[in-house]
C-alpha cells in the first residue's frame, strides 16, 4: 500500500519516515504487509475498543506469555528516575514524526503542558494522578528531545500510572505529554482569535470552541477527526456514524521488526456496527471477524468452539485480572443488615457458604478458578494464600458461624431471623449476562445456610447509579484491576464498590461521604495508601501497598467467587503473531498488551 504511494511521489521513502534509531520489536514471526482486519464495534460509546488496539504511552506494559509484567519504553529512546523519585527524565526518539510527517519535538510537549494542561478554559480541573498532594506536575524542557517531569513529593508509582492512564484529559488517547502543536494551535485560545475559534467550532458543527477538546472533542479525539496528526500505528479514516468505521496505517509509525521492516503490518482495520450479542456471535461463526477480544464472552465458549472449523478461526485465551464477586454495601441504609455485614464471622459465612467449583463448571465451562478477589497470577502483588482466603466450600462451618453471631432463630421455612425479627434477606442486583444463572446457584447455597438471596436484574445505568446514590444492598460485580494494583487501587479502597461513601470521605478529606467509625479497619487501608503514595522508595511503597491488599482480602469485605476467568479471543487461522496467555486488565490496557502492531494476515 505504502510503496505505491512512494512511487507516485506522495510519500517520502521509508528510511526518511522512520526515526534515526527506530524502536525494534522482536516479533515471533516476520510478517507480510497488507490485509484488512475486520472486527465489530458497538457504537459511539465503544471508543475504547478501537482506542485500546493502539494506544501510545511513554512507557507501556509488556509481558511474555505466562511471565511477569514489565515496563518498556514507548515512543521514547530512554527514561530515568531520580534517586528520590521526584524527577522523571524522558528522551523522545530522534526523528520521530507525526502521521502527517511533521517532526515531534519537546515543543509539542511544552504546548501540551502550558497551553492545554494548565489552560483553565480547556481543563477546568487537573486529575489528581498528575497532581499528587494537590500540586500539579512541573515541566522542564532540556532540549529538542529531552524533557523532565518534576513533583514536590516522591512519586514512586508515577510510571505505573503513566502506563495505564497516561496524561489523562483532555482527548481520547490521553496524549501522553504530546499534542501536535502545528495542527492544534488553531483551536487554542492562546494562538487563535475569538473569531477564528468561532469559525472552527462552526466548521466542526459544535456549539463552542471548547467542545473541540476533550475525550469527545470533535477536533482532538482521534476517533472523530481524520485530520488530527497522531503517533499511533493506525489513524482514523472513516469515523462514526458510518456503519463501518475504518482505520488506516500510519506511514510514519516509529517501530520496526527485528529485520528492519516498518510496523504495523496490517493496512486497515474495519469495525462493523452491531448492537446485540447474538448478532455479533453470528458474525464470528460466519468468519466475518478476523481477530477480536472485546465482547467475546466466556458463556458462549462452547458455541465458538463448535464452529471453529466453519468460521476458520480458533479461540485463544488470556486471563482476566478480575474476580466475579458479590459486593456488599458497607454503607447501606438498612442498619440491621449493615450491622451484620460489619461482623467478620457473618462475611466469612457468606463466603464459605458458596459452592464455587459448581459455579465455575456450570457458568464458566470450568475455564475460570474458584478464588477470592485478590491479585491474579502474574501480578507483582500476587499472593497464593490470599487467593484462597475463605474460598473453600464449607456449609457446616458457615451454619456454625451464623449461629455464633446470634442468627440462631429460624422461621417456618428454615430461614434465619434478624435481631428485629425479620427474615435475613439480601437483595443482590446484577446487570451482566452471567448473573441470573450464577445467582440461582448461590441462592440455593444460601438457602442451605438459612439466608434468603433475592436476585434483581436491573439496567446497567441504574446498577451504576445505585452505587453512587448508596441505594443497594449487594451487587454482582466484576471486581477488576487485580494486576498492577499500584496503578489503580481505588476499588480496593471502596471507591465505586463496597464502601463508596467511606472512600468519598477519604478522597474529599471529609467534605462529603460518610466518616467510618474510629475503630473501622478500612482506616488502615486509607493510611496504607497514604504511606505508599508518599513513600521515598519502592520497597517502602510496595510494603505499604501489600499491607493494604492484605487488609482488604483478610477482612473479606468483598466476596470473590470465581476469577482468573478467560479473556477469549477469536483469531482467524490466517491471523498471525497473536500471543497467548497474557493478562487482560484495564491497567495493562486490554488487548494493547498483545502488541497489535506485530500482528499480520497471511494473504
Amino acid at each position, binding site marked *: 500500500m505504502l510503496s505505491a504511494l512512494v512511487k507516485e511521489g506522495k510519500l517520502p521513502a521509508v528510511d526518511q519516515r522512520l526515526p534515526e534509531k527506530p524502536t525494534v520489536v522482536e516479533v515471533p514471526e516476520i510478517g507480510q504487509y497488507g490485509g484488512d482486519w475486520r472486527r465489530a464495534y458497538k457504537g459511539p460509546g465503544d471508543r475504547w475498543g478501537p482506542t485500546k488496539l493502539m494506544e501510545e504511552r511513554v512507557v507501556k506494559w509488556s509481558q511474555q506469555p505466562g511471565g511477569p509484567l514489565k515496563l518498556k519504553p514507548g515512543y521514547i529512546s530512554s527514561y530515568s528516575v531520580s534517586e528520590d523519585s521526584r524527577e522523571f527524565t524522558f528522551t523522545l526518539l530522534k526523528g520521530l514524526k507525526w502521521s502527517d510527517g511533521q517532526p515531534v519535538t519537546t515543543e509539542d510537549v511544552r504546548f501540551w503542558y502550558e497551553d492545554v494542561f494548565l489552560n483553565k478554559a480547556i481543563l477546568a480541573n487537573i486529575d489528581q494522578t498528575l497532581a499528587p498532594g494537590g500540586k500539579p506536575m512541573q515541566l522542564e524542557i532540556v532540549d529538542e528531545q529531552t524533557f523532565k517531569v518534576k513533583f514536590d513529593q516522591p512519586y514512586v508509582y508515577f510510571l505505573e500510572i503513566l502506563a495505564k492512564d497516561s496524561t489523562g484529559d483532555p482527548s481520547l488517547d490521553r496524549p501522553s505529554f504530546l499534542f501536535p502543536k502545528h495542527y492544534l494551535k488553531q483551536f487554542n485560545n492562546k494562538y487563535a482569535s475569538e473569531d477564528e475559534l468561532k469559525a472552527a467550532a462552526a466548521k466542526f458543527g459544535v456549539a463552542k470552541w471548547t467542545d473541540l477538546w476533550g475525550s469527545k472533542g470533535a477536533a482532538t479525539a482521534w476517533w472523530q477527526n481524520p485530520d488530527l496528526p497522531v503517533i499511533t500505528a493506525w489513524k482514523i479514516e472513516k469515523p*462514526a456514524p458510518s456503519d463501518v468505521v475504518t482505520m488506516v496505517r500510519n506511514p510514519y509509525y516509529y517501530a520496526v521488526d527485528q529485520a528492519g521492516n516498518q510496523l504495523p503490518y496490517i493496512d486497515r482495520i474495519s469495525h462493523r456496527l452491531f448492537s446485540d450479542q447474538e448478532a455479533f456471535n453470528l458474525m464470528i461463526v460466519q468468519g466475518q471477524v478476523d481477530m477480536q477480544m472485546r465482547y467475546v464472552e466466556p458463556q458462549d465458549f462452547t458455541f465458538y468452539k463448535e464452529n471453529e472449523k466453519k468460521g476458520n478461526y480458533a479461540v485463544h485465551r488470556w486471563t482476566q485480572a478480575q474476580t466475579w464477586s458479590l459486593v456488599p454495601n458497607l454503607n447501606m441504609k438498612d442498619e440491621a443488615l449493615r450491622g451484620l455485614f460489619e461482623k467478620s464471622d457473618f462475611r466469612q459465612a457468606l463466603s464459605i457458604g458458596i459452592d464455587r467449583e459448581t459455579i465455575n463448571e456450570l457458568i464458566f465451562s470450568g475455564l475460570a478458578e474458584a478464588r477470592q478477589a485478590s491479585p491474579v497470577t502474574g501480578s507483582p502483588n500476587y499472593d497464593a494464600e490470599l487467593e484462597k482466603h475463605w474460598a473453600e466450600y464449607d456449609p457446616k462451618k458457615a451454619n456454625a458461624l451464623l449461629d455464633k453471631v446470634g442468627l440462631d432463630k429460624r422461621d417456618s421455612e428454615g430461614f434465619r431471623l434478624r435481631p428485629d425479627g425479620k427474615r435475613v434477606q439480601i437483595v443482590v442486583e446484577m446487570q451482566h449476562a452471567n448473573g441470573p444463572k450464577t445467582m440461582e446457584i448461590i441462592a440455593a447455597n444460601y438457602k442451605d445456610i438459612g439466608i434468603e438471596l433475592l436476585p434483581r436484574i436491573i439496567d446497567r445505568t441504574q446498577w451504576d447509579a445505585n452505587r453512587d446514590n448508596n441505594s443497594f444492598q449487594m451487587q454482582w460485580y466484576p471486581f477488576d484491576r487485580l494486576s498492577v494494583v499500584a496503578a489503580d487501587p481505588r476499588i480496593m479502597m471502596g471507591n465505586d464498590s463496597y464502601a463508596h461513601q467511606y472512600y468519598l470521605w477519604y478522597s474529599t478529606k471529609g467534605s462529603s461521604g460518610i466518616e467510618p467509625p474510629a475503630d473501622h479497619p478500612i482506616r488502615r487501608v486509607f493510611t496504607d495508601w497514604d504511606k505508599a503514595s508518599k513513600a521515598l522508595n519502592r520497597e517502602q511503597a510496595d510494603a505499604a501497598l501489600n499491607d493494604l491488599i492484605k487488609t482488604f482480602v483478610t477482612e473479606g469485605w468483598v466476596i470473590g467467587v470465581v476469577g482468573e476467568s478467560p479473556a477469549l479471543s477469536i483469531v482467524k487461522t490466517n491471523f498471525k503473531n497473536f500471543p497467548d496467555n497474557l493478562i487482560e486488565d484495564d491497567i495493562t490496557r486490554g488487548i494493547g498488551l498483545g502488541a497489535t502492531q506485530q500482528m499480520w494476515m497471511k494473504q
Partner: protein
Amino acid sequence: MLSYIGRRLLWAIPTLIFVSFISFVIIQLPPGDFVTAYAAQLRNSGDYITEAQEAALRAEWGLNDPLLVQYWRWISNIIFYGDFGRSLEWNSAVSDLIWERLGLTLAISTLSMVFTWLIAIPVGVYSATRQYSVFDYVFTVFGFLGKGVPDFLLALILMWMTFVWLNMDVGGLVSPQFEGQPWDLAKFGNMLTHIWIPLVVLATGGAAGLIRVMRANMLDELRKPYVETAYAQGFGERTVVWRYPVRVALNPFISTVGWALPALFSGDVITAVVLNLPTTGPLLLQALKMQDMYLAGSFILILSVFTVIGTVLSDILLALSDPRIRFS
C-alpha cells in the same frame, strides 16, 4: 370531501405538538440523565470521570435547565431551522444519523406490509368461504403459531437454520464486503438474500392477526342478504365474493395502513436488534437507554409525523371506499 380533509389536517397540528412534548418529557423521566448514562458507559469501559467533570458536562449540554427551556431549545430549532440538534452520544447531527436509516426502515416496512397483505387477504377469504374445512384449521393453527412465537425468537431460529443448512451469510442487510459501499446492482442482489428473513419474520406476526380479522369480517358480510341476492342473480361465487364482501371486509386494512411504520419502529425494535439491521429501531433503543433525548425525541417526532400522515391517508382512502365514513 375537501373540508373533511382540511379538518383532518388541522387536527394533526395540535396532535403533533402534544406528542412531541410528551415524548420529550417521557424520555427524561427515568432517574439520571444523559451524563449519568454516559458516565456509566465510561465506567464500564474502565474510564472514570469525576463529579466535577460530570457537572461541567451537564452545564455544557444545558441539562440543568428547566425541562420547558430544553424542550423549547429543541423544538424551536426544528421549526425555524429544520435542525434536529446533535446526538449527545454519537456526537454528530441527528439528521445525519436518521435519514439513511429511515429510508431503509420505510422500505422494509412497506415491503413487509405488502407481504403481510399478500398472505392475509387470500387466506382470510379462503378461510371464511370454506369455514371449518381442513385448510381453515391448518391456516388457523399456523396463524396462531405465527402470532404466538415472539418475532425475535423466530428471527434467531431462521437465521440459525439458514446459516447451518444453507450456509448463507445472515445478519445485517448486506454482506460485510458490501457495507459502506455505494448502492449498485450487485449490492442490491446481495440485499435480497438478506432481506427475506426480516420480511418473513415481520409478516408472519402481522399476517396472523389480519387473517382472523379478515375471516371474521368476511363471515359477517357473507351472511348479508345482498350476497344471497347476487347468487340469485346467477353470478358465480368468485365474482360475488371478490366484488362486494371482500371490499367491505378490507376496511380494517385500510384504516391501519398508517400504523405500519410505527409498528415497525416500536414493536419490532427487538427483531431489528437481533437481526442487526441498519434500521432505526436499534438506534432508537440505544438512544432511549442512554437518554440521548435529542436523538430519541427527534425519532419519535418524525415517527409521529409519519403516523399522523398515515392516518390522514387512511382516512381519505376510507372515505373514498366507504361513503358512510364521510358523513358520520
